[in-house]
């Protein structure tokens, strides 16, 4: 990982010094174990703060929307695809963004590591190559990184950013023959009643903190549909029906745009696996319209387009 970090810093320094960008958005070491935090570098000497390892899980595409100045963004495969979607939807002009693509072998899911250690608190953690060294009060463990990757990274088919201006390091082999819809298929196999109770249980934990909306780069509406007043569509209380509808409609809104970066599931403080909804939407759009989000800047989004031969088996 150090090789990647070094070349990332060189690229950042070059971009800043050549005035190609006014700001670099990347990751720096966080204040807590296994945590990195977004960092905004505009002076070449701060470039040393930039780091890269597989705990850089924040989705930096969120900071690209409505950027006035020229920006260089460190972007994993999913982030780069989301920046592409934001550019295609005119939320930021292409010439304002330089995508610094970083081939990514998957980011570590902190919740998986914490649940593995149950009660014991992690005081220190470092990632070395394939291993995670975890230190606590009176324990020290070496964990295999690949057992603790985020769910979306396990089936990610775009480890190398499909759209980028600069590539850090070399391309990594892509996962090809992996079925990314296994969880969705398991849920689909359930009976409707069982699925309803499953989603009821999951979404009843929601406390409407809107972190999933705040972290998703696709949610840039000025007034979200839950905050609208004339008419007030759905309630803002944590009543079960309002909460389920909030998540259902948000899933509809990312149809044909979501790239499954997994940020919404990672950020949820009450551990709701929102990917179950978003992945189903991705499956619907893929099967019905053979569309995959964020792979090109020109392609019309599926819900803004139509073909005469679109499937209509569900129409009487």
């Amino acid at each position, binding site marked *: 990982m150090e090789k990647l970090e070094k070349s990332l810093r060189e690229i950042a320094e070059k971009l800043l010094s050549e005035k190609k960008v006014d700001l670099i958005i990347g990751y720096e070491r966080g204040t807590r174990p296994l945590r990195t935090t977004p960092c905004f570098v505009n002076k070449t000497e701060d470039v040393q703060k930039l780091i890269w390892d597989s705990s850089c899980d924040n989705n930096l595409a969120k900071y690209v929307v409505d950027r006035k100045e020229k920006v260089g963004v460190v972007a994993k495969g999913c982030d780069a695809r989301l920046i592409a979607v934001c550019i295609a939807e005119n939320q930021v002009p292409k010439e304002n963004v330089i995508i610094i693509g970083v081939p990514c072998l998957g980011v570590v899911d902190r919740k998986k590591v914490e649940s593995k250690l149950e009660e014991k608190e992690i005081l220190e953690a470092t990632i070395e190559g394939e291993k995670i060294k975890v230190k606590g009060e009176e324990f020290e463990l070496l964990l295999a990184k690949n057992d603790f990757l985020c769910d979306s990274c396990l089936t990610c088919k775009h480890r190398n950013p499909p759209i980028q201006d600069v590539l850090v390091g070399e391309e990594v082999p892509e996962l090809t023959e992996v079925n990314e819809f296994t969880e969705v298929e398991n849920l689909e196999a359930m009976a409707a009643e069982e699925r*309803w109770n499953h989603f009821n249980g999951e979404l009843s934990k929601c406390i409407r903190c809107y972190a999933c909306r705040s972290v998703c780069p696709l949610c840039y509406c000025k007034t979200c*549909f839950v905050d609208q007043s004339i008419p007030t569509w759905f309630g803002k209380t944590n009543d079960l029906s309002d909460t389920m*509808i909030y998540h259902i409609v948000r899933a509809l809104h990312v149809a044909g745009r979501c790239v499954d970066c997994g940020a919404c599931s990672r950020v949820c403080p009450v551990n709701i696996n929102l990917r179950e909804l978003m992945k189903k939407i991705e499956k*619907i759009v893929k099967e019905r319209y053979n569309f995959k989000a964020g792979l090109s800047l020109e392609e019309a989004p599926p819900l*803004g387009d139509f073909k005469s031969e679109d499937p209509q088996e569900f129409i009487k």
Partner: protein
Amino acid sequence: MKNVEKGWEPRILAFLCNWCSYAGADLTGISRIQYPPNVRIVRVPCSGRVNPYYIIKALQCGWDGVLVSGCHPGDCHYISGNLVARRRFAVLKDLLEYVGIEPARVNFSWVSAAEGGKFASVVTEVVNEVKALGPAKRLVKVRIEWKNLKNR
């Protein structure tokens, strides 16, 4: 809104596109073709006008079924209103079914201005399917009953 004891009758909300399905419904009337009285019709300019919010809000308000009907592909008075809507409805229907809402609750159909008979048969089919499902419970927002709260 629903009396479950004696012969419960479902209430179905129908969004009919002004140029084809609404005219089709009128033709059903002119030709006196009978169909069950459970449907309440809302006229919209085009099936493309029907926002997923309407369908979800209807389900939340306790409507037992929703029908959206528009012109056949190619006949749309607004050229592509129904074609754009078709994709939207496809995604919505698949997602609602996935979340666990009975598929028969949300129905879509193409009925042209000349198909009075088809409109009646579509409505009958929808009413029977919804009646088989029973009153809508999933996603319905429970309204507070006035009686048991007024205790001070």
